[in-house]
Each structure stands twice: as structure tokens, then as C-alpha cells.
């Protein structure tokens, strides 16, 4: 800045007062804008506020959690993406339907029939593990994952994972999912309401039913080499026992 500019700066600084020579205020005065177009000024103030409000509502709407609980009875629900879930008594599940329709958090035991969507994996975060799937039927509980259809990936908190296919189960031991050698045929009967057997050895059928009803069962007669195929509703144990007995020509009794 040359000498004459220093003069200009000195002149400006000598007379400067904040708010003086305010072009906007002067224009409002000269044009009578404030009285003629009050709406314009209201809009100028209101629009950013309205925009902020809309954004706020939008984001809080997006972040809304939907929560499901099952108290005394198992409860079935359908999520936004078409996935069917069944919650065992005492279980909870929550997710953000607008933000992450295929990511759920859960406690307790939940059975899933996941709507297929290859592009968007379905993720279950449970206290013990994270389960990622594309579209299958499986269930997750505090200490195990059972797969009925398709494939799922189970990751423990330490990041070690296993892939399970239909009929396989994993138990979580110290945060590491371990493939189970022997599994019950219908780990999810409580949710599906059906026992499904396909040439299942009779001994496995009895274990399955015992586990479900909490009742020890015994065969009267010779059970060796006998297996069962068919579907039974979970409604009534005595009826199931009678049907199986008739089909295999044996007698099943509660101990």
C-alpha cells in the first residue's frame, strides 16, 4: 500500500464507527422495503429456521428405533423389509426402519426368516455374536445360532467367525463360535410351531421333543433303525406321541 493509500486508511479509521454507512439499512429506509414487504424479512428469518426444523425432524425420524418385546408368550412380527421375526418370551429386538432396515439388535432368543436381498446383508447384533446373512431362516440366542435354511456367517466379539449352512448350529464358547457336532432337528419349533422331520432317527426325534417340552420321553418296544418323516404341529405333545406311535408301530410314553 503506497502513501496515498495510508492516507485513505487513516481517513477511514478516523471516521469509522460500527454500523455506520450500513448499505442494507439505508436501502430499507430509502426504498421503504421494511414496511412494503414485511413478508420478505420474515421469510429471510423463518426459512433457515424452518429448514433446520425440517432437517431435525427428518434426522430424528430417520434415527427412530422400533422396538419389539415378547413378554409371556412368543411373539411374531414382520419387519419393514419383509423379514419375519419371532421373539421367544422375555426377548427384545430393536432396529431403525428408516435408516438401517436390515440391521437389528437383540437380546434373548429370536427366530428369523430373512427376506432375500443380495445387495443388502441382514445383520443381527446379539450380546454374544454378530450374524450376517443374505436371506435365510435361522435363530439367534444368547449362546447359540441355529440355521434352518441357507447360509449365515457368525462372528464372535473377538472377530473369529464360522459359516453355518442349513441344519448346522454354532455354540458360543468364550466369545468364539464353535460348530456343534450334533444338533436337534428343530431348534426353532417354538417359533415356527412345527416339528419337521426328514428321515430323522427316532432317537433324535425323542431328544427334540424332550428338549422342546421339557419332558423325558421313552420308547416302549424296539426303536432300532426306525426313522420319521413328516410335519407335526407343536400344539399338543400327546397327539404327536400318538401319531408317531401309530406310524412306527411303537408306543411312546412320558416318564
Amino acid at each position, binding site marked *: 500500500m503506497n502513501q496515498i*493509500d495510508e492516507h485513505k486508511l*487513516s*481517513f477511514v479509521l*478516523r*471516521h*469509522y464507527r460500527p454500523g455506520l*454507512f450500513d448499505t442494507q439499512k*439505508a*436501502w430499507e429506509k*430509502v426504498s421503504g422495503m421494511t414496511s412494503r414487504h414485511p413478508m420478505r424479512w420474515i421469510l429471510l428469518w423463518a426459512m433457515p429456521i424452518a429448514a433446520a426444523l425440517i432437517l431435525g425432524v427428518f434426522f430424528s425420524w430417520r434415527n427412530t428405533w422400533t422396538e419389539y418385546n415378547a413378554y409371556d408368550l412368543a411373539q411374531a412380527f414382520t419387519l419393514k423389509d419383509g423379514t419375519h421375526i419371532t421373539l421367544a418370551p422375555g426377548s427384545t429386538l430393536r432396529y431403525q426402519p428408516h435408516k438401517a432396515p436390515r440391521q437389528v439388535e437383540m437380546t434373548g432368543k429370536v427366530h428369523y426368516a430373512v427376506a432375500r436381498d443380495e445387495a443388502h446383508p441382514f445383520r443381527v447384533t446379539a450380546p454374544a455374536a454378530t450374524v450376517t446373512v443374505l436371506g435365510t431362516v435361522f435363530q439367534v440366542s444368547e449362546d447359540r445360532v441355529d440355521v434352518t435354511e441357507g447360509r449365515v456367517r457368525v462372528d464372535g466379539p473377538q472377530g473369529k467367525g464360522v459359516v453355518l449352512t442349513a441344519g448346522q448350529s454354532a455354540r458360543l464358547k468364550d466369545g468364539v463360535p464353535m460348530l456343534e457336532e450334533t444338533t436337534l432337528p428343530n431348534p426353532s419349533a417354538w417359533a415356527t410351531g412345527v416339528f419337521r422331520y426328514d428321515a430323522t432317527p427316532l432317537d433324535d426325534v425323542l431328544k427334540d421333543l424332550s428338549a422342546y417340552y421339557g419332558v423325558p420321553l421313552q420308547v416302549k418296544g424296539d426303536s432300532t433303525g426306525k426313522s420319521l418323516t413328516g410335519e407335526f404341529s407343536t400344539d399338543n405333545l400327546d397327539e404327536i406321541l400318538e401319531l408317531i406311535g401309530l406310524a412306527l408301530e411303537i408306543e411312546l410314553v412320558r416318564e
Partner: protein
Amino acid sequence: MLQTKEIETLFRTYYRPLCLYALHYLGDPEAVEDVVQESFTALWRQENPVANGKAWLYSAVRNRSIDALRRTGKTEPLPSDLDGPISDDDAEARSALEARLWTAVDALPEMRRKCLLLAKRDGLSYKEIADELNISEHTVRNHISRALETLREGGPQMLDFIFSFF
């Protein structure tokens, strides 16, 4: 007759330069704003076509300023600088950059502006400013040198940018 839109453009471009121009004549900011605003109102009411709005406004402000000075008894109304009289052409030529500097001072961070004005406008020493604002002399010196840096280097360019919004 000029359209409101054209008047508004002239106003947003020349209001502050015209104020600085009139300030060289009148030295009183309040009288300055009255004169400049009256000139714009007169332009608005002008029935005859105005070819050069800027030139018309500068001469309107000059005439009104000289009238105002004559009313206070000055026989030779001349524009002036802090050091004494300057020519009317000089006052007009300087007003544009002075307006930019004014806007640049407006845009300074508050503490820098306060320190700068206390020193350059009110003539306080760094020590007096430090006491007044409850900061160290070193900080005062810093604020002032930063402020001057902004005004000398960044100010005018930055204001080109700000003006382009109008």
C-alpha cells in the same frame, strides 16, 4: 425513469462510496447519510432519462454537500483530507477504495478492530489499550499488526468478492 431494480443496483454499488465522498466535504457522518439518501430519492423521482447513474449521483451528492456547507456559513466549500483540502476529483477517485477499506474494517475480528481503532482513531498507546481491554501489550501489538495486514493485503480483494454478491 429508472426501474427499482436499477436503483437498487446503483444503491448497493455506490451507497458507501458516496458516503465516503460526502464525508470529505461534510466530515459529519449523520449529515453524510442524509445527503446521500436524499440524492437517491431524488434519482428515483427523476422524470428525465438518466444516462449515467453513477455520474448523476456523484454530482447530486456534491451539490447537496456544498449547499449544506454554505448553510453553515462556509464561503469556500472544499473537500478535505485529514491533512487539509483536496480536489473534488481526488475525493471522488478515493471514495471507492475508502468504501472498500470501510467494509474491510467492518469485517475484521472484533478484538483486532477494537485495538486498531483505539490506536489509530483514538490515538491511545499500546499500554493504554492493553489496560482498557485487559490484555497484554504484546497481544495488542499482534492484533493491530494482523488487522493492518488484512486491510493492506486482503482487504480490497476480499471486498471485490463481497461486492460481487450485490
